Each structure stands twice: as C-alpha cells, then as structure tokens.
C-alpha cells in the first residue's frame, strides 16, 4: 500500500494542487501549487523545502564497516574521512551499475548509505562473515532537502552549529529546532543546499521550524516536478530514467557501467578488490562503446522547425523522461533519456547515451522532436555537464 512520509501531515495540508507522485512506496508532492514553476524558481533564487524521506537509508556499523563498504562501492571508502560524504555507484560482478547514492562516514566504524532502490539484501549478503551490523533505517529516519541560495541563512536561524564551515559533501551533527539532527551539505539540485535528517517522529516539528524560519527568505514547499528540472540542469543521473539498474534489466545490453554513465571518476581500480573491479578494469583497457553525455538543442533550429507551422517553439514545461532517438546524419547514434527546457539558462537541455565516437563536446548531432504531430530532427550539440553550476554550490 502507498503511504505518506513522516512529513505527510504537513505536506498534505499544503498540497493545494493535490498533485501526488509515487516514490519508493510513498506518495510525495509533485507540486504544491497547480504548476511547479514557482517551486522551480524557489530552488534557484530563494529556498525550496523538499521532502526526500522515501530515500532508502542503511546504517553499516562495526569493526569491519570499512571493509564491507569498500567491497561494495566503487569509491575508496577508506579515504572517506569522518564527517565526509562521497557520491558513489555500486555494481554487479560484471561491473554493471546496481544503484547510486551517498556514502557518509559518521565515525571510524559507522557509515550511512543512501540509495534509490532497496539494498538491504545486497548489503547483508556481502557482509557475511564480517564484523558489522547492518540496519535498514529507511522508515526510522525522515529527511528534507533545503535547497537554494537562501538555504544557509534560513538554517542558521534554527541550528546551533557553524554552517559557514560546513563544506560541500560534508556533514555535521547539530541541533536543528532543538531536535537532534544531522545536516549534510548535499542535494539533488546542483545549487547551494542542505539535507536535514531527523528521527521520523520529529519530522513535523522540523518542517514547521524550517517553514517559519524561511518565511522572510521566500521559502516554498517544493515538489519533485521542480526538482526534476533542477537535477537535469545539474546533470545528475536518475535511476530507472537515465539508466536501467542491473537488477531490473531484461537483457545485458540495457545495463551500464559507471564509465558508460560518465561516472569513471568514482571508480577507484587501485583501491583493492571490490565487486565489479575486474570487469571495469577490462573495460577501461578496451575502451568504451557508449557514453552518457549532455546535449543542447539549438534554439535557432527549433525556431525554424516550428516556424514552418507558423508557431513559436513549444517548449516542455516539465522535465521529460522517455527515450528519444539521436542521429548523426541519417545514422542512429543513441538516445536521450531526460530533458527539459532550462528556464534559467534559456536552453533546451537533454542527457543521453551516445556511441562513444560521437560523445566529444562540440559534436553536432540531431535529436528527434515532435512538431505538430510530426517527427522532426532538431540540430543539437554535445556539451559538458553540469549545464548549470553556480559558484555558490561549493562556496
């Protein structure tokens, strides 16, 4: 059965548009107002409060915690300092990505791993015989993301810690609204932002305190439709949308390795054995057939296609998530998996999988667009991700 998150009593009172979406067995707001536009701008220009409780969370604790984690993820967990967070994928033996998430080091012997998919069984299986306890904390911990340029000022008002010294991808234990919490400098928006993690039964109080503190700073409860645009602008992958997790693939050709997803930087081949290492080393040697790239559709080309029908370009108002063919000349060279019109950049963006020889930034390609019911091809270019990367994200 679908259920509400620990914030449901608050979010449901605010969700005027009754626009609910499912996420990992929960319902969360798609948008609070009738359209998600203001919420998108809150992420980029003021502050957005986003319920992210449905994420899976696992606690890995014990003398062998580093060994277990290192065996699973592709990053080097032994290099993860206490209070540091690493973004990482993890793979099958064949090097195919199972999932991706964040790995936090809470102390020498304790990690938290966040994941899009349930991973308890995978963790337990790989911990057999080792001195660790693994706890599924998913339901016990509630989380909200506070994202946007005003997020720091708001959080300062109600937390007892020095946020100016909390670096990007670092965490701090703090009291937030007098509740014991963990603040992480993370997010899915590519903007300045934090995520705040508390015990589920205290979720309501956290929400109220954040909303009250944020009022003078333009805080808006924000749904996942707005988030989806921000994450495309930030060039961040989404499981089941931009890649098929290895466990769900019907055939091997649907799966991807971290290299093929542009996550080569997360693969530490020389850190010692981990699941998928051999296959990944082999692929690195042989070279890639596919790459995951950023694509920018050229405005002038869109304008021309629509002009033939006497129309101004019709732009998607939501981020789309479907497979769209990409061509070079007449040849099919791959497919885009997500895309959106970026209101800030004034650009039509997409991300997708292209044959490696077409993946160099600057390569001209063509992406299919539907114009007045007809399939057309718009001129586009391969570009670097992230599309939008403001200094404040790390500052």
């Amino acid at each position: 059965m679908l259920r509400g998150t620990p914030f449901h009593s608050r979010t449901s009172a605010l969700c005027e548009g009754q626009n609910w979406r499912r996420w990992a067995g929960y319902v969360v707001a798609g948008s609070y107002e009738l359209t998600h536009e203001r919420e998108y701008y809150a992420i980029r220009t003021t502050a957005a409060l986003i319920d992210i409780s449905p994420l899976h969370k696992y606690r890995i604790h014990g003398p062998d915690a580093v060994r277990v984690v290192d065996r699973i993820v592709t990053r080097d967990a032994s290099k993860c300092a206490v209070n540091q967070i690493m973004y990482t994928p993890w793979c099958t033996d064949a090097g195919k990505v199972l999932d991706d998430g964040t790995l936090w080091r809470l102390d020498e012997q304790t990690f938290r791993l966040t994941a899009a998919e349930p991973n308890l069984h995978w963790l337990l299986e790989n911990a057999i015989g080792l001195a660790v306890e693994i706890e599924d904390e998913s339901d016990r911990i509630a989380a909200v993301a506070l994202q946007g340029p005003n997020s720091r000022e708001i959080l300062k008002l109600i937390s007892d810690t020095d946020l100016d010294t909390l670096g990007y991808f670092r965490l701090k234990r703090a009291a937030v609204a007098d509740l014991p919490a963990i603040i992480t400098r993370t997010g899915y928006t590519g903007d300045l932002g934090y995520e705040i993690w508390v015990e589920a039964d205290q979720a309501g109080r956290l929400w109220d305190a954040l909303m009250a503190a944020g009022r003078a700073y333009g805080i808006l409860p924000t749904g996942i439709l707005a988030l989806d645009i921000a994450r495309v602008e930030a060039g961040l992958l989404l499981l089941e949308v931009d890649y098929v997790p290895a466990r769900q693939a019907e055939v091997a050709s649907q799966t991807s390795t971290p290299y093929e997803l542009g996550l080569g930087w997360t693969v530490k081949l020389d850190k010692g054995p981990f699941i998928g290492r051999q296959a990944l080393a082999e692929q690195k040697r042989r070279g890639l057939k596919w790459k995951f790239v950023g694509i920018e559709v050229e405005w002038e080309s869109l304008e021309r296609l629509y002009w033939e029908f006497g129309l101004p370009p019709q732009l998607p108002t939501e981020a789309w998530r479907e497979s769209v063919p990409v061509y070079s000349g007449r040849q099919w060279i791959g497919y885009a998996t997500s895309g959106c019109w970026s209101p800030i950049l004034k650009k039509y963006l997409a991300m997708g999988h292209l044959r490696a020889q077409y993946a160099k930034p600057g390569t001209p390609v063509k992406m299919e667009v539907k114009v007045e019911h007809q399939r057309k091809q718009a001129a586009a270019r391969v570009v670097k991700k992230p599309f939008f990367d403001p200094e404040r994200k790390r500052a």
Partner: protein
Amino acid sequence: MGRVPHYDAIVIGGGHNGLTTAAYLAKAGKQVLLLERRDILGGATVTEEIYPGFKYSVASYVVSLLRPDVIRELKLAEHGLEIVPLESSFSPLPGGDYLVRWADRDQTRREIYRHSPHDADLYPEFGRLMSQMARAVKPLISMAPPDPTSLNPKELLELAKLGRYFARDLEQEHFYSLVKLMTMSVADFLDEWFESEPLKAVMSSSGIIGTFLGPRSPGTAYVMLHHFMGEIDGVFRAWGFPRGGTGAVAESIASAARSYGVEIRTSADVEQVIVKKGRALGVALESGEEIYARRVVSGVDPKRTFLKLVDESHLPSDFVEDIRRFRIQGSSGKVNLALSELPHFTGLPADGPHLRGFISVGPSIEYLERAYDDAKYGAFSRRPYLDIVIPSAIDPAMAPPGKHVMSIFVQHAPYNLNGGWNDAQREAFGDAVVDTLAEFAPNIKDAILHRQVLTPWDLEQVMGLTEGNIFQGELSLHQLFFLRPAAGWARYRTPVKNLYLCGSAAHPGGGISSAPGRLAALEILKNWSKPWSS
C-alpha cells in the same frame, strides 16, 4: 590621421545596451574599451542601496523584452542572471473591490467573469490575437531595419521579404487588426472588444507606459502591442524580475563583457567624440584625456550624441534638424519605498499571491485620461497612474528579513513642469503618489521607512537620460523601425564615419532588451573590414 588607435572600439555609456555591444565586439576578438560617466554601471538598469539594507531597482524594475538569444550567447546565467517570472496583475478598485489576472487561465476567467461575463469569454481570444500580432511584428524586431528609400538592392530585397511575409503569413483579418493597432488609440481599440472598465483600464495602461500620451491618444494601441512582445522562454507577454534587481542584468552583461576582455572604466565622462574629416577617431574625456579607436559606438541617446558629443559642424544640417525634432520629453517618474511591512490592500488578505505580481493603480480609462490631462497642461498628475511591484516579495534578499521594498513607476510627471522641478515640487509629487496609494492600502504611510522620489529631471541628472525619457526617445510610430532615430539612419550608422549608435534610441527601441546593443554589434562586425563609406 597620425594617431595610433589604442583600441578597436570605444563604447560610450555603460547602460545595458552599451555593455551588450561591448561584449559582442570583444567576443568577436576586438579590443574594446567601455566608458561610463557614473561610478556604477547599468544606466537605467541599476540596483542601488540608497537606504542601508534596502536595495532599489532605481529606475527600471521588471524585464520582459530581454532577448533569450543574448542570455544564451553571452552565457548570462553563468554570469549570475536569474529571472523569476511575475505572473499576476492586480488592480485594486475603489471600495475594496479588485481585479486580478492570474497565471492560470481559468482562474483569470472566473475573476473577469465577476466584472463582466462577456469580457471573460473574449479575454483569451484577445490574448491569442495579440500574440499572433506580436509574432507578426517580431521578425521586424530581430532584424536590422531595412531602409525603404534605399536603392541598394540588398535593402530592397529585405523589404520585399518582409512584404512577402506579411502577404503570405498574415491572414487578411489579422492584417486589418495590425493596421488598426498601428493607428488607433488603445482605449478605442479595447472598446471594440471589452466592456469592463477595470479590465480596459489595466490593459490600456501598457499603451501609455513611458509615453507622454493618454489612453485616448492615437498610436497608443501600438505601444500596448510592443509590450506584448516581451517574451520569456518563447511565451509572449510574460514579465520577470531579475534576482538582485534590474542592476543584476547589467552586472551579468558586464561580467560577460569582462570575460571576453572588455576594459571597463567608470567615472569616465566622455565630453567629445573626436572627429576629423568626417571620421570618428576617438573620444576626449572631461578630464582632458584623449583615447583613440577604430570605431566609436555611442550607447547614449541621440540628442546627447549628436547635439553635445559631436560638433555640429561634422553633421549635415537636415540630420541635425531631425535629431532636434526627435521627441524625447519624459513623462514618468519613479518612487522607491523602504517598508517595515507589506501594504495591506482593502478587501484582500494582508499577504497573498496578489502581492507577488504587478499592482496597477488606475481603475478606469477616465482616471488614466485625467492623469494625462494634468500633464498636458504642465502639471504632474494629482492622482497618477501607478505601476507597482514589491521586489522583496519575490526576492527577499532585496530587503532585510521581513522588511520590503516597493517600486512605483508613476505617470504622469512632465519634464517641462510649470515653474520647473525643484525640491518642493519633487516632494509634492512624492506625496501625490503616496496619497493615491494610501486610498487603496491605508497602512502604507505608517510603513514607510525611506522614500526616494525621482522626477524626469532627476532621471536626466542622475542617469543621463535626456529629458528623463525612459526609452531614449518616445515609442511613437514616426520614431520606430527605419525612422529610428532619423530617416535614413536606422542601421546603427551615423553621418560620421566609424561612429555608430547602440542604445535604446536605435532600432528596435527601449526597454531592457539588449536588442539594439546586439544588433548594433553584429552590424558593426559585418562591415568591419570595409568601414562605411557613402
């Protein structure tokens, strides 16, 4: 000549158009120097903290016409530009009633229905026609204007293309509407469609903004259309507020310009364009310094450029006459307020979405026409038309937490006030504005922490806008397209070789658009190797 040019180009004036031209020239590899008279960039597109903690968009306050191609080509988002759409327009009416047009079509229809069921149904149809008209006219805006009297085959070809476009793509009934729009008054044009007074009033106000005209003056229908041309993301008629105020637009363009290598000097007042043998060689600053360049581009209005900076002896006398006749009298003022709390409009909740869009005080056509009547006879309007936004309700960083700034654009305040502007007149004008607003939001007087009043005279003194005209010249038909700024001189060139215009006085005109700036740069670059010759 004998002088070695220091730069490929000098741009006079750091308004957003001058900055845009400089950025495009430098992006194309030219060595560019930009000179701004004030100690701050932006011209009429400027944010200043006049009262500590409160940031005013001192003059212009919303963006609509800013070209998305400029945002893309100069990568303005990377240089910090973020524009938030403003989506509603709220008109308070006497007695606590109101009319709000929302972003949601059906909500708007229901709201108009309260005032007139007839108008509620026609409103979307009118909107469609306007966006079709705006689209019909838009190609004119994106291209450098052809000169119909020219015998140059290229120009004639472009004009023919335009003619063909009108013949092919505009249905006949649209063509008639376009002719009406070009000639009628906005009030007459709207009378053909609507019956509701408040609706007509708020719609007609865009036909008089920035003009020295009333809603019953012919030509104002076109000005309304000009405002429909603003687009955000290909959506016509949307307005936005730049985070950080309109100064953020100029700052982001300046940042882009610097990234391409433009050298920017502020507090550099150009006194003269150095001209020898009909050719611009450089500029002389007020300090006496002389700087030489291959091209000189003026982002300053034509009166200043040709009647002050260039010695008249270098210009043909009929051209000087045209420039003298160029209508530029300003008729708008600006009041910026720092507020301890939001204005509470009678009949509506103290806070709400109606405060996050436009607030338009001008409840009827008659009200607007009377406001103009005052100005016609040399007085400021006793009950003026007010176009208000509360920037801090959209971007709280514009004011200290919980406090607000309010931007009030006021019409009319004629530059040539009877007896002239002085401190007492300025304050009396400010009082008229606040008194008018207080009729609808009684708490406003007590909420005011600081007030800045700008008359057209102040706009001239502070921003260097001749006669305080907000568009560097009125947007009336005889001053648009190939007639802007003077017949025969619309392609950014001037009678002085190597001297160009790039400000809002050039095609396609005023507003925060960067369009004249961009088109001027492209035109200058196109002819770089072959300097213009007659």
